[in-house]
């Protein structure tokens, strides 16, 4: 499905003369009531409920108000360009992509949200250069944005990659974990190719050798030699002794978010290493990314 197929010129308002966000919501609610016969109070409530979690305003003056209405089996989009910027909690916005969906969410809802976020990041100047509703719709039509094909991993990973080399000592891994406030790193060879991963529990294995893990518990101990000798061990043990070799805890940078979410839910994992076609590490992606970009984008 294409984004422009969800847009209608009578729900795009150019040079709209209003003074406040409340006024904007009221106007939108009225239009939607006229067109779809949806209770105006419900519409206002939906926007405000989402707003309580924080405003989705970008620094370029774009805002994406969105909300969920119980049993609304639809996805409704209203685009508003106001004549003058509105003051909203110390920020300014004059371009609004308003989206309403049901409480369970339409298939295209998340992608629609993400698409508008992308339009705002990449084509803000072009959108603002248009002078009426038809031009805006034509421009979005030209972009030909697919909203059924999901977002790709490469669109949402952050740039910085921290990895550890297979020959590094465990002490240096612990230091790095503290420094970057991370609990796992991809393990790479000298060429930066992915070999596996090491997390804080792998490091802790130094203190808890395999034979103790086979016991029911060690709560009867008041002292435990392996634990006491942890720091000496840390200096002499290397990543290659403890890391987990795996090829399935990775995801290709061209894979999409649906695939990613599926792996997390199915395997109960919280993060994956993102690799390119040559198996070089290009980033990491975690369940937090899903929260920040998708669930509460």
């Amino acid at each position, binding site marked *: 499905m294409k984004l422009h197929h969800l847009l209608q010129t009578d729900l795009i308002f150019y040079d709209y003369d209003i003074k406040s966000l409340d006024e904007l919501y009221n106007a939108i609610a009225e239009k939607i009531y006229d067109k779809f016969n949806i209770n105006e109070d419900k519409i206002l409530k939906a926007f405000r409920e989402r707003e309580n979690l924080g405003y989705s305003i970008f620094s370029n003056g774009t805002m994406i108000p969105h909300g969920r209405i119980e049993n609304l089996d639809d996805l409704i989009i209203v685009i508003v360009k106001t004549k003058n910027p509105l003051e909203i909690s110390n920020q300014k916005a004059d371009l609004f992509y308003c989206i309403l969906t049901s409480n369970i969410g339409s298939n295209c809802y998340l992608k629609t949200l993400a698409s508008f976020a992308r339009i705002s990041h990449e084509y803000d100047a072009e959108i603002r250069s248009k002078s009426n509703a038809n031009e805006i719709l034509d421009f979005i039509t030209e972009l030909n944005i697919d909203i059924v094909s999901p977002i790709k991993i490469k669109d949402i990973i952050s740039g910085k990659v921290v990895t550890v080399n297979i020959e590094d000592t465990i002490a240096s891994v612990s230091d790095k974990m503290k420094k970057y406030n991370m609990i796992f790193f991809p393990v790479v060879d000298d060429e930066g190719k992915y070999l596996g991963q090491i997390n804080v529990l792998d490091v802790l294995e130094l203190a808890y*050798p*395999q*034979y*103790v893990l*086979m*016991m*029911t*518990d*060690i*709560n*009867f*101990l*008041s*002292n*435990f*030699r*392996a634990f006491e000798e942890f720091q000496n061990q840390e200096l002499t043990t290397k990543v290659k002794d403890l890391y987990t070799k795996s090829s399935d805890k990775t995801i290709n940078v061209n894979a999409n978010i649906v695939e990613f979410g599926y792996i997390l839910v199915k395997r109960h994992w919280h993060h994956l290493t993102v690799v390119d076609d040559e198996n070089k590490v290009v980033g990491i992606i975690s369940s937090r990314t899903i929260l920040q970009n998708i669930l509460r984008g």
Partner: protein
Amino acid sequence: MYIAGTIFILSYVFIASEKINKTIVALLGASLMLLFHIISQDKAFEHVDMNVISLLISMMVLVKIVEQTGVFEFIAIKIAKLVKGDPFKIMVFLFLLTAFFSAMLDNITTVLLIAPVSILLAGELKISPIPFLLSQIFASNIGGTSTLIGDPPNIMIGSAAGLSFMDFVFNLVPLIIILLIFLSLTFYFLFGKKMKVSNENRARIMAFDEKKLIKNPVLLHKSLIVMTFVIIGFGIHGFVDLEAATIAMTGASILIIVGKIDPDTVFKEVEWGSIFFFTGLFIMVGTLVETGIIGIISKKMLDFTHGDVKFTAKILLWFSGGFSAIVDNIPFVATMIPLIQDMGTHLGTHAIKPLWWALSLGACLGGNGTLIGASANVIIANMAAKSGNKISFLDFLKYGVPITLMTLLISYFYILIRYF
């Protein structure tokens, strides 16, 4: 008949080579017997000894439940404290404890429970865990020999020969006690003098609070009550005309109910690989019986021994001891059982009783010969290696070969004196 023999020998070679998972080899061998129409499926499944299979599964279920109460580790730690952290006494008592547990549980479970505690104790005492672990390998194989449920070969022998739990106790336990005393003395000369620990390290052991291991005393009490009844049941099953499998199955079912255990969770813990291994083996050996191969070999053996049971027992003991030291004793015993049964039809079932004991002793004690002689040996060796204490194949031979020879020799005289 030739195809059956070929399939069997090839499967045996693959099992011994350990290149392919033995369960898969056994199942594939059994499948080939069926695919070539050497045996019909109905007939093949008749040879699967459900008495053995259900006894194994029931005991695994029982043990998995009791194991999670922490009682086994509790006893091991308690012993270490009772002997005030004295390393040699710890070694001997854990040796005897391992033998006792192996008699009541399967050997693998026993070493999985005792060996980690031993490595931990040795670590705290700052001594090598290897003497502890070696002694436990020997204990698991010797202890397992003493009862019907102690070792899979005994389960198979008991089921096939109609020997009860108490038959094993009366016939084998006296010998096992002699062997355990003999080995304890051997250990004293080998390791006793060398084990020295500092006062501080000994104090570390005494600071253990083993009561904390018992986290679910309610389940422990229920488990102990059920286990007591199961053991009493084993004691009398021969007199009340019930199979040991019936006793174990009843005990397992009752413990699952009264212990409020989730059946699916505990069933997942059953070692299905072993169970299917037995199934495949039974079918392959059953085919040999049905095709008459076993009958022919048994006839040849009778010709060779002139029906002399004493002579046969001697050969059986030494041959199965040597063979089991190198390859898995389960397929060996599975093959020998129909052979001996067939000889029994000529010599009389009562007359061949010593043969069953010779087979059991040879097959179980032979496991001590090499590091690959029994699964428990391999498990301990792996555990030792992972804790930074490698036991090499040759190192083990230095202890394994003389100890196996001595225990077999003692068994040899025991059999001669007691039965002939």
